[in-house]
C-alpha cells in the first residue's frame, strides 16, 4: 500500500496532464484532497490552504453567519436590495446544480421553473389574497407538475436535444405568461405582498427570510447530493449504462433530479416575487437561464462552494460594472471566456474525495 502510493505520487504530473487531455474533468485541481497519496505535491501553499478552507466543516456555518450578519455591516437600501438578488440567484444556481452538476443534464430553460414559482405565488397572493407563505405548497406542486410535463417526454433524449427542448420550454412559459390575461400580460403581476416585516424595516425583514431560506436550501442541496439519490445522480452523469446495470432506474433518477431542481427554482421564484413586488415576463427570459447556468459552470459543476461563489460573482459583477453601460456586458463576456479557458473546471471545482465523515465513526476494512 505504501510503496504503491509513493509510486503514484511520481506519476501524478502525467496523470494530471492525461486527465486534462482526456476529459478535463472537474476533479483535476482539487481532486487529491483527503487522499492518502501525496498527490498535492505540485500545488501551491495557497491552493492547499484554500482547499483546506473549502473542506472545513465550519465553512458552511461561517458563510451562513456572515450572510445573516450583513445588515449590521451595511444596511443601505441598495446593499440589501442587491444582496437579496444575489441570495435568490444563489438558490437558483444551487437548484440548477442538481440538474446540471450532479446529474449532468443540460438545462437551458431553468428560468421556466423560476417563473412558475413566481407566477403561482404572485397569482394566488394578488388575485385571491392568499398570504405568501400559504402559496408555497401550491408552488411546490406547480413546480413538480412543470417538471413532470417537460421531463416526461424529453428526458429520454440525447443531451444536446435536451438543451434545445428545455430552452424551448423556457420560452414557452415566458411567452405564455406574456400572452395570457390572468398573468397580467406583458406587465405581469404587481402589488405582491411580502412575508411581513416582523417589526423590522421591511426590506431587511425580507432579507433575513431570504437568507435563512437560501442557507437551508444550500445545506439541503449539498446533503441531497451526498446521499443515496445524490450518488445515483452522479452515477447517471458518469455512465448511464453502468448505472442501469447496477439496478438504478436511470429514467426515474433523472426525473428526480429534474423535479428537485424544479422545486428549488419554484421556491426561489416565491422569494423573487416577494422581493420584487412586481413580476413580468422579461425577468424570465433566456438570458436568465443562461446566466444561472453560467454561475454553475463558472463556479464548478457539482461543487456547492463553487456554485455559491459562481452565483455571487455572476449576480454581483454586473452590479459592480454598473455605469459602464454597454461595456459591462462586453467585459462580462470576455471575462467568461477567459475564466473558462484558464480554468475550465470552474473556480472551485468539486472535490472527488469521500464525503466528510464524523471523526468518531471508524469504518471497517483496510485502507
Amino acid at each position, binding site marked *: 500500500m505504501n510503496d504503491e502510493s509513493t509510486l503514484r505520487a511520481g506519476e501524478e504530473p502525467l496523470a494530471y496532464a492525461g486527465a486534462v487531455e482526456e476529459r478535463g474533468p472537474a476533479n483535476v485541481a482539487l481532486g487529491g484532497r483527503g487522499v492518502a497519496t501525496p498527490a498535492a505535491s505540485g500545488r501551491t501553499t495557497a491552493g492547499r490552504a484554500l482547499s483546506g478552507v473549502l473542506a472545513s466543516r465550519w465553512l458552511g456555518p461561517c458563510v451562513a453567519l456572515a450572510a445573516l450578519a450583513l445588515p449590521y455591516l451595511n444596511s443601505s437600501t441598495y446593499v440589501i436590495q442587491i444582496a437579496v438578488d444575489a441570495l435568490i440567484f444563489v438558490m437558483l444556481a444551487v437548484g440548477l446544480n442538481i440538474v*446540471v452538476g450532479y446529474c449532468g443534464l443540460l438545462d437551458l430553460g431553468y428560468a421556466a421553473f423560476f417563473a412558475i414559482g413566481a407566477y403561482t405565488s404572485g397569482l394566488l397572493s394578488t388575485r385571491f389574497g392568499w398570504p405568501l407563505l400559504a402559496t408555497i405548497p401550491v408552488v411546490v406542486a406547480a413546480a413538480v407538475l412543470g417538471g413532470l410535463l417537460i421531463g416526461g417526454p424529453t428526458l*429520454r433524449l440525447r443531451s*444536446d436535444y435536451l438543451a*434545445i427542448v428545455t430552452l424551448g420550454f423556457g420560452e414557452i412559459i415566458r*411567452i405564455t405568461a*406574456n400572452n395570457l390575461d390572468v398573468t397580467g400580460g406583458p406587465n405581469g403581476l404587481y402589488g405582491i405582498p411580502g412575508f411581513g416585516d416582523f417589526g423590522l424595516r421591511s426590506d431587511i425583514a425580507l432579507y433575513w427570510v431570504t437568507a435563512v431560506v437560501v442557507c437551508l436550501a444550500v445545506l439541503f442541496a449539498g446533503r441531497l447530493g451526498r446521499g443515496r439519490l445524490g450518488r445515483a445522480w452522479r452515477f447517471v452523469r458518469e455512465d448511464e449504462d453502468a448505472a442501469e446495470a447496477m439496478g438504478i432506474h436511470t429514467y426515474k433518477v433523472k426525473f428526480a433530479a429534474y423535479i428537485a431542481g424544479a422545486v428549488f427554482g419554484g421556491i426561489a421564484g416565491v422569494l423573487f416575487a416577494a422581493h420584487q413586488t412586481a413580476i413580468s415576463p422579461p425577468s424570465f427570459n433566456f438570458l436568465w437561464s443562461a446566466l444561472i447556468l453560467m454561475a454553475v459552470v463558472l463556479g464548478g459543476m457539482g461543487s456547492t462552494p463553487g456554485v455559491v461563489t459562481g452565483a455571487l460573482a455572476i449576480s454581483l459583477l454586473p452590479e459592480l460594472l454598473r455605469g459602464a453601460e454597454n461595456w459591462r456586458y*462586453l467585459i462580462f463576456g*470576455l471575462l*467568461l*471566456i477567459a475564466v473558462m479557458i484558464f480554468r475550465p473546471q470552474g473556480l472551485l471545482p468539486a472535490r472527488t474525495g469521500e464525503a466528510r465523515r464524523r471523526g468518531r465513526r471508524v469504518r471497517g476494512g483496510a485502507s
Partner: protein
Amino acid sequence: MDHFIQLVFSGLFVGSFYALVALGYSMVYGIIKLLNFAHGDLYMVGAFAGFTVLSAGAGVLGGGLLALLAVMLVAMAATGGLGVLLERVAYRPLRSAPRLSVLITAVGASFALEYGIAVAFGPNPEVYQMGVSDGTLNVLGARLTYAQLAMTAIAVVLMITLDTLVRRTRTGRAMRAISQDPKACLLMGVNVDRVISRTFFLGSALAGAAGVMAGVYYGKIDFLMGFVIGLKAFTAAVIGGIGNLRGAVLGAVVLGLLESFSVAYIGSEWRDVFAFGFLILFLTVRPTGLLGERVTERV
C-alpha cells in the same frame, strides 16, 4: 387558395434566411459537437460589416445587384475571419474540456460580440442605405417582390455552393470524415485543426452573407438582431437533424412554413410557443430529427 400560396411563399422566404444561419450551426456541431451560441451574432456582425462597407464606399458602389454581391463578399470574408478567430481563441483551447465549459464560452462570446458592436456602433439601430427594387410579381395569385426573389435566389445559390463544396472537395471530405471519427482522422494524417478552421470560416461566412441580405432586404440592423434568429436556426438545425447539412435546410424550411401558418391560423403572439411546442413533440416522436442518422448505442 392564393392565401395558402401566399403563406407558403412567406414561409419559404423566412426559411431561406433561417437555413443560411442553421447551416453554420449544423456544420460546427457536426464537426466538433459544439453548440456555437455565438453563431447568431456572427450573422449580426456580418450585417454590420456590410453596413460599414456601404457607408465607406457610399459614392463608389452605387446600387444594384453587383454592388450587393461586392458588399456581401467583403462581409463574408470578415465574418468568416472572425469565426476562425473565435474558434482559435475561445474554442480550441477547450476542445478537450467538458462540453458545458465550451458552451459557456460560446455564451460569453455571444455577449462579447453583441456588446462589442453596441460599443463600437452605438446601441441605436442603423439603416442600410441600399434600396432594393419595390417591384412585385404575381405568382399563382400570391404576390412576391423582386427583392424576395433575389434574396431567395442568392440563398439557394449559396446553399448549393456549400453542398458542392462539402461533397466534392478534399476539405469537404475531410470535414465529413472528422464528423464521423475525429480520432481516426488524426491518425490518418488529416490536419484536423485546419479543417475545423475552414468549417468555422464557411459557417460564419454564410451567416455573414445572411446578415448582409437581411440588412439590405429589411433595411434595419441592430446589435441584438442575431439572438432571435440564432435560436430559430438552432431549432431548425435540430428539427432537420443536427449535424446534417441538408437536414438543416429542410428543418429551416419546415420551421419557416410552420411559423407562417401558425401566425395565420393561431395568432402571431403564439407563434414561438407553437414553434417550440412542435419541436418538443417532434423530438419525442423522432428524436434524431428529420434527416439525422440513427445512432446505434454501443454498450
